[in-house]
Structures are given as structure tokens and as C-alpha cells.
């Protein structure tokens, strides 16, 4: 018994002395471990030791059942001193399109910015791949370091992305990319766009809204889009439109979703698309007007967004 007590005392003393110097591996501070002076067993940021952080692979793309994820594209300052946060989304589905109504599966926080986001999420486009810079939120000039978070729930998972104006790296140029414009590079200017010849032109990502137009289920609705490239015409007397469904309860069919517009000598032209709806309700369509569809979206500049509201009845 005496010996047992002695051993127990030794163990307790040893524990008391050693405890302050012991740290579990998980408690090691990765920031400190990157210091060349630190000795953190098992830590090597380039070996990327097993972690519970997710690792994804592009092979996760399938015909259906894969995630639709919101993307924060960046921000820009408006002439009145306010800022616009620009969002888009990426789908991992080659064939499946999904309706995600506003509500617990599709919401923006703070709630004052909720309600304008898309509710229809298209499949991967064969070349453009995804809608870029398609959803805008304007925040006040004194927005500071606050955040706007867009959340999508689909296929059993939740995906959120924060938008903010704190990082200059995320500035989006609009409506002109100066360096590309200096050399006449295709896609350096957002074409001007309007839906009514009597109304002023809109230009850039903040774009313009039009409607509500009215339509009948199953009956094609013709929508003309007027485009003006003016002095930016350069060598290519053409412009392009890309149409996608933005929201609405049913399906939408475009006679052409990629529309090539021949421009006249003044750089103006019109492209008309017929749109057919499968169900009654309130729809929003998005049309993006751009100099060329080839690679242009990758630069995050330059095109003009137009959101078209359509009320569809039986």
C-alpha cells in the first residue's frame, strides 16, 4: 500500500509538471506552425495532412442530383456613391434544371436584401457553362465591412456565400475594361441595351428592368432587344444576346437563347426572341448583351444585363 501511494504521488507530480507543456495536435495553431521556427509535428501545409475540410473534384459533375452553389462575383461602386454586390451561381448538373422558390431554401440575409434573387437554376451551358454576374444587390454608401449572405439549399445540402466590399481584389469592372478597350479587344465594352426605342439606353452589369409584359401559356411572346455599340464597333459589326430564365413557376422555351445581332453602320441593331411559357404566373427572364460570347464572361467584363418581367395567364 505504501509503495502504491508512492507511485501514485510520483505520477501526480509528473502530471502536474508536464501538463502545462502538453498540447494536443489539434490545438496547435496553424498560423504559428507556418513559422519556420515552430516545431509542429505532422504539420506541413503543402502535404495537406488529413483534415475534415471538404475536398471536391470536378468529376462530381453528373446529369442530375448535383449541387447548385451561389457565387459572389465581386462589387462595383455606383455613380451615386452606393455599391452593387454582384452574384451568380454554378450548377454541377449537365441536364437537370431546378426551381428553388424564395423561402427557407433560397434566401438573402439581412432580410432587407431578400427577394430579388433567381429561383430558377439552369443546367450547365455547353460553352458559357454558368450564368455570370446575374444577380445584383445595391447596398448603401456607408455599408462598410458588413456582409450580405445568399443561401441556397438543394439536394439535401446548404450552400452560402457572403458578398462584401472589403476586398479590392473583388472589384468588377463595368461597363468598360479600359486596357482591353485600348486595343479593340472583343468584349471590352458592354453594349448599350433597351427594350423600347423611346427609352434611354442602359449599359453595364447594373443593367435595366423591363415590363411587366403579358403573355399566354403556350403562345410565343416576341421580345425585341435593341443594342447599340456606337463608337466601339471596331472590326466586328455584330453583337450577341444570351437569354436565360431567372425565375417563374414553370418552364420557358426560347426560340434562340444565343442571338447574333447584325449591327448597322451606327453600331445599332435589334435581336428578337420568341419566348413560350408552360404555366401561368409571374416570370423574370435575364438577357445579357455582350460583344462576343467567346471567352468574354471569364474577364468579368463587359456586358449589360436586362431583366424582363412577364405575367403569364391561361
Amino acid at each position, binding site marked *: 500500500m505504501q509503495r502504491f501511494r508512492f507511485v501514485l504521488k510520483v505520477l501526480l507530480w509528473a502530471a502536474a509538471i508536464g501538463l502545462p507543456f502538453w498540447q494536443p495536435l489539434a490545438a496547435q495553431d*496553424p*498560423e504559428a506552425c*507556418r*513559422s*519556420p*521556427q515552430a516545431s509542429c509535428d505532422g504539420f506541413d*501545409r*503543402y502535404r*495537406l495532412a488529413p*483534415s475534415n*475540410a*471538404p*475536398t*471536391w*473534384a*470536378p*468529376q462530381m*459533375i453528373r446529369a442530375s442530383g448535383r449541387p447548385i*452553389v*451561389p*457565387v*459572389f462575383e*465581386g462589387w462595383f461602386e455606383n455613380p451615386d456613391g452606393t455599391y452593387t454586390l454582384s452574384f451568380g451561381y*454554378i450548377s*454541377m448538373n449537365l441536364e437537370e434544371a431546378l426551381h428553388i422558390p424564395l423561402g427557407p431554401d433560397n434566401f438573402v440575409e439581412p432580410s432587407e436584401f431578400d427577394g430579388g434573387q433567381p429561383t430558377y437554376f439552369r443546367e*450547365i451551358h455547353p460553352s458559357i*457553362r*454558368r450564368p455570370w454576374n446575374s444577380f445584383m444587390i445595391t447596398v448603401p454608401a456607408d455599408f462598410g465591412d458588413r456582409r450580405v449572405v445568399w443561401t441556397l439549399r438543394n439536394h439535401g445540402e446548404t*450552400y452560402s*456565400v*457572403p458578398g462584401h466590399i472589403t*476586398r*479590392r*481584389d*473583388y*472589384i*468588377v*469592372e463595368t461597363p468598360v*475594361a*479600359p*486596357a*482591353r478597350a*485600348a*486595343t479593340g*479587344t472583343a468584349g471590352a465594352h458592354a453594349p448599350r441595351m433597351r427594350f423600347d426605342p423611346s427609352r434611354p439606353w442602359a449599359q453595364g452589369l447594373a443593367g435595366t428592368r423591363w415590363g411587366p409584359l403579358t403573355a399566354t401559356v403556350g403562345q410565343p411572346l416576341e421580345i425585341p432587344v435593341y443594342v447599340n455599340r456606337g463608337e466601339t464597333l471596331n472590326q466586328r459589326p455584330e453583337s450577341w444576346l444570351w437569354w436565360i430564365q431567372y425565375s417563374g413557376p414553370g418552364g420557358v422555351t426560347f426560340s434562340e437563347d444565343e442571338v447574333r445581332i447584325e449591327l448597322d453602320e451606327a453600331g445599332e441593331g435589334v435581336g428578337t426572341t420568341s419566348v413560350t411559357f408552360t404555366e401561368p404566373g409571374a416570370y423574370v427572364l435575364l438577357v445579357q448583351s455582350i460583344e462576343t460570347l467567346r471567352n468574354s464572361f*471569364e*474577364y*468579368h*467584363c463587359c456586358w449589360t444585363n436586362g431583366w424582363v418581367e412577364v405575367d403569364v395567364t391561361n
Partner: protein
Amino acid sequence: MSRKKGLRNVCALAGAVLAGVVALPLSAGAQVSFASTGDGEVTYASDVAPIIQENCVRCHHPGTSAPMALETYEQVRRYSQRIRTAVENRVMPPGWYIDRTVGIQHFKNDPSLSDEDIETIVRWVDSGAQLGDPALLPPPVEWRGEHEYWQLEDEHGWGPPDLIITSPAYTVPAESGDQWYEPVAPVQDLLNKEITGERWIRALETRPGDEMSGYVFHHVNSYLVRAAETDDPDLDGGNLTDAAVGKRIDMYPSDSGKLLRPDDQIRWSLHLYPIGEEVPDANVQIGVWLYPEGERPQYATEDETSFNSGESRSLGLPRYTDLLIPPHGYQELRGWFVLDRNVRVHSMRGHMHLRGGYQMMEAIYPDGRREVLNKIDWNHLWHTTHIYEDWAQPLLPKGTVIIATTLFDNTADNPSNPDPDQWVVYNRRSVGEMGHVRMGITYIPDEDFEQMLAERERVLAEQERGGRPIASR
């Protein structure tokens, strides 16, 4: 907020990393000892100063972005503990992020200190950082700015360039997003002297045209556009040279070159960053080293050829433009390529953006052997081209499968990550991602390739007998 990035930033980065090494410097007023040293002792004057001058002072001198100068004994002694830590951990000199535990380790442009040099510095610090005999100090060097010197001339002994190509100038606005300037111009309009006939290029180097230009360039790609199409695919245009932050030079093997014709045009792709103040007439210069007039090298090199991770068109896999990196997570992409001709690889360079983790190139030879050629631990400010020693250049027979692996790191552990809360997608901005590796390659005809393999076997056997490092087969 000023964002001074660019070719100049190699020095800034080097200084920042050194400054970040946590160690207490000796106080500025520390007494300097001039005590004589005995035989066998390591002293600053005779042993350490030559190492510091050759490897450190290029950035660590007044007028650079480095946070401290290391030109004098007093300056070096003051930071001796930090220097000891930095060199012992191979944090300094910066710019070399090849994984030293796997793949080929023999390069022409590895700036790393030798083990002997590191030991010398460590011993010097540990023994009291003595000056020694001032008469033994090497003479001081007049350093020129990043825009004033040629690395191939100063560090590789190639002499001054035979030609200098100056890019069209562009005024970078003070405030804007990323800028891409993409002019096309006849090469004769951009040269410092006229060329009258076909010339073969053996090396190239890109530098900022002036001091301020160095702050705004992220990368510069240039392409040769021929005046007329050719039936010989070896002589068509294509890439001239790419430069990026931390990458200046291309050197071809001594039997290879790239054709430059007087009626060529150059198509530029200049990726620039606004830095908070206008930079007027930003431009770059490309130094060109030529083969003698009338001399044509044995092979026309393809030089840097892109191997995309995650894009293998022949297999119909998803594109690498579909990459999606989760917040606080990783993504791995792989691309597979089957070589349809024999290839000799003379260089390797990675390309990722701010969420880069690492890139690895592997070869599966037709006989089934699999080998890691190299793994590059990514640092966004060092787009170094790793140029193999002649006897270490991978020889890849036709039928070899190349696997290009890219791992993105969107965690907070990645020090260059601007926002780990974001979902990151493909695009051209630095906050978007890309993942491709450029290997400098030359196609080799069958008969020549057999001879190269035989010569490589002979070199390997010789190395083995001599107990020296074994080159790649």
C-alpha cells in the same frame, strides 16, 4: 489602399518573409566586436560576406522593397539570428518552391544556398558573429534596379541580349479592376535594332520597362504571329515567352531554338493591376539572345506547353473551367495526356492563383513505370520556371501518360487567400482560379531519341559508379 504587386515584388516578398521570421534581432546599438579570430573560425569577412553578397544583396540593398539592407557587417550582424533561422529553414533565398523530397532536383537556376553555405552561416552566428579581417571583405557591388539588369547576363554569364523587344505602352489607371491589355504590333516596330533575315532564339528574359512598370504587372504573355502560314508545324508561330511575378527567364537546350522572322507580329497579353496611383506608359522589355547569324539549331522547340489539370478533351471529362472550391476546403483536379511523340522536357512552371496549394507532374512510361517528375508547392508571387540541368531533362517516349495534378487550398491556412469564406470558381482574375502546368518541351525524332536514351544510360551509370545523384531516366 495601395496594392503594389508585380515583377518588383520578388524583393518585397523576400523581405516580408524574412521580417516575419520570429526571432529577436540584436539591438541597433549592440557593440560590434572586431576581435581577431583564430584559425578555423568562421568570420564575416572571409566566409559569410561572399555568400550574403552573392545571394541576398540583390534584393537587400537600399532603394528596394526589402525591409532591411544587408550590405555591411553591422547590418548583417544586427539580423544574424533571423538570417540563421531563414537560411536554415530554406525560407531564404526565396523563389524556389520545388518539393525537395520528391522528383528531380537538378536545375540550372536553383537559387538555393548549398548545404555548405547554410552551415557556414549557422556556424558564424553560433560562434558570435565575428567580423574577422576587414581586408578580406569582398568589394562592394553596384546593384541595378529590376528594370535595369538582365539576370541572364549578371547571373548566368550570357552577356547582354542581342535584341530588346519593348511592348506597346499602356497607362494603368489608379483605381480599377484587373486590366488586360492585348495589342498586336509588328516585331520590327518593337525592336531596338533591325533584323534582316530569319534568326533563331536561344534564350529570352522579360523585365519591367521602368521602375513603376514593375509594380503593375502580374504577367505578360507574348505570341509570334507569322506573316504567312507554313507547312512545317515546327516553324509556325505560337508562344514567344511568358513572364509573371517572380519569373523572368527562358533558356533552351543548346541544340534547340525558336524562329524569329523580320515580318512577324507579336500579340501581347498583359495582365496588370492598378496600384492606387496612375502608372503612365507601363511597358515591359524582352531581352533576346540569338544563335549566330545563319546558324540553325538542330531542333525547333515547342517550349512552354500547357497541361491543364482537370481537362482532358480526348476523355471527355468535365472541363477545368468547372472547378469549384468550397469555403475553407480544397479541390483536386487532374488532367491526363498521352504523348503522341517523343518529348524532351527542359523546364517546368506551374500556374495557379491565390488559392494555389500545389501542382505535381507525373509520368507513366510505356513500360508501366510511374515517376513523379516534380511537385511545385505554390507561391503566388513566384511563378518560377524551373530549368533542368541538361543531364536531368526528363526523356518521355511516345505513349507516355502525363498526369497533371493541381490542388487548390481555400483554407485560412493558405497565407495568400483573400477570403476563405468564398466559393471559388474558374476565371481570369486572381481571385478566381486556374490550374495548368507549362512544361518546356521539344519533340525528338525516334532515331535521335534512342541516342539520347543511350547517352542518358551512360551518364546514369557513370553517376552511379561515382556515387553521385542519379538523374531521371
